[in-house]
């Protein structure tokens, strides 16, 4: 997993760390159950504070991408490779069909988010 941090007032460091880990999980390079580096070690490698790394890890935990376990650190929660492939195939099909409609990416994402929220079992 490669994490790159570029000083940018518009993009806090913890968000950049979280984005890099998220990208690793989504592209399959971080497997389910894999442990992320210890927050202290990662902070020393990147020259950032422990708090910054923990902030990133907590964001990822809130997004359901990792688990924070006492004594085991941060553990990746990723879909099985077959499930991931199926999801990507469905999304590719949907993207190609939506592209024909001429909708903007933002509109498509907003609609998709709306549909997800509507079908979520947590929404009562």
């Amino acid at each position: 997993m490669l994490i790159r941090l570029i000083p940018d007032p518009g993009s806090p460091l913890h968000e950049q760390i979280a984005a890099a880990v998220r990208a690793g999980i989504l592209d399959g390079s971080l497997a389910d159950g894999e442990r992320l580096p210890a927050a202290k070690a990662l902070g020393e490698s990147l020259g950032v504070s422990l708090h910054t790394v923990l902030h990133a890890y907590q964001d990822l935990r809130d997004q359901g991408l990792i688990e924070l376990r006492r004594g085991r650190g941060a553990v990746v929660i990723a879909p099985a490779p077959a499930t991931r492939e199926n999801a990507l195939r469905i999304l590719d099909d949907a993207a190609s069909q939506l592209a024909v409609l001429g909708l903007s990416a933002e509109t498509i994402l907003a609609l998709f988010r709306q549909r997800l929220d509507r079908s979520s079992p947590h929404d009562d």
Partner: protein
Amino acid sequence: MTTNLPAPRTSEDPDPRFWLGVFLPAAAVLAGCLALVAGWSPRLPAEVAQQWNWSTRAVTTVGPLWLNVLSLALPAAAVLCALAIMKWTGRLTGWGRRLSVVLLSGLAFFLAAALPAMLRGQMGLEDPWQAPDPRSATALVAVLSLAYGVLAAAVAGGRPLAADDDPGVPVSALDLAPEERAVWTTHLTAWVCLLGGGIPGLVLVALGLLTPLWGLSVAGVVLLVFAGVTGRWSVTVDHRGLTCTTLLGLGRFHVPANQGARAEVVAVRGLAEFLGWGIRVGSAGSVGLVFRNGEALRVHGRGGRSLTVTVRNAATAASLFNAQAARNTVSF
């Protein structure tokens, strides 16, 4: 007048010195000791003394002769096999070559010669519990074994006994912005260490508990601890360089990313090379954490030393290391 110097001998040339000067003499010592003990067997008691009390020098353990022979001859044969396999698979290279020859040939000699040293004083005895303590003879055998190992290493000569590591593929540096910070990290499970240390460790512990050779349990526990410590590794490339640590932090290899250091991607041979997996020392003082076949990251530090570790996506790690080394060189 022009003198044509002979071409330097390479590892590809036939090298009878290893077989004739190192392996065969050690094998002959083992065979000779076994023949000697076989000749003594009619004069030895049915059960022979195996262990003595260090303080009182009294016998503490007796056992069948065959068990005594096997407990020393089998490890001696195994050490000789390991030496031969290391030769065949190209592991006898670099600065560790002479040390390997000294240790392995000396150990084989010691295990083989300790057998008659232990049994000589028991010839003609009816009661094995009256056997004299063989520590003086064993100490003499230890000294002779060390001398034999040193002699064998001298006979083996100075040229490489096996091929050097294959050259790698150079990797260009990652394009880092001036203020950009980056880290590449991964975790490795070293199954070869877990299984290679764990299974023999369990077997030795069981043997130590079930037989009079209780010392095997101690060796087994040491192997189990080794397996646990080296079974999981964290590999990191950052502004400091390449660092490989065990998860318990008890082992650590590091190559700083400074002037003259460079990283490349190599294809490591392993499956076809028995003893090619694990924590190994290669040619020119290089260290390898080789846990499988194929893609690996190799970093060359100062003094020609290198650290090789089998990781996925080694090209990314190598490009980041080269970028960090270039940055640190510029900032000096």
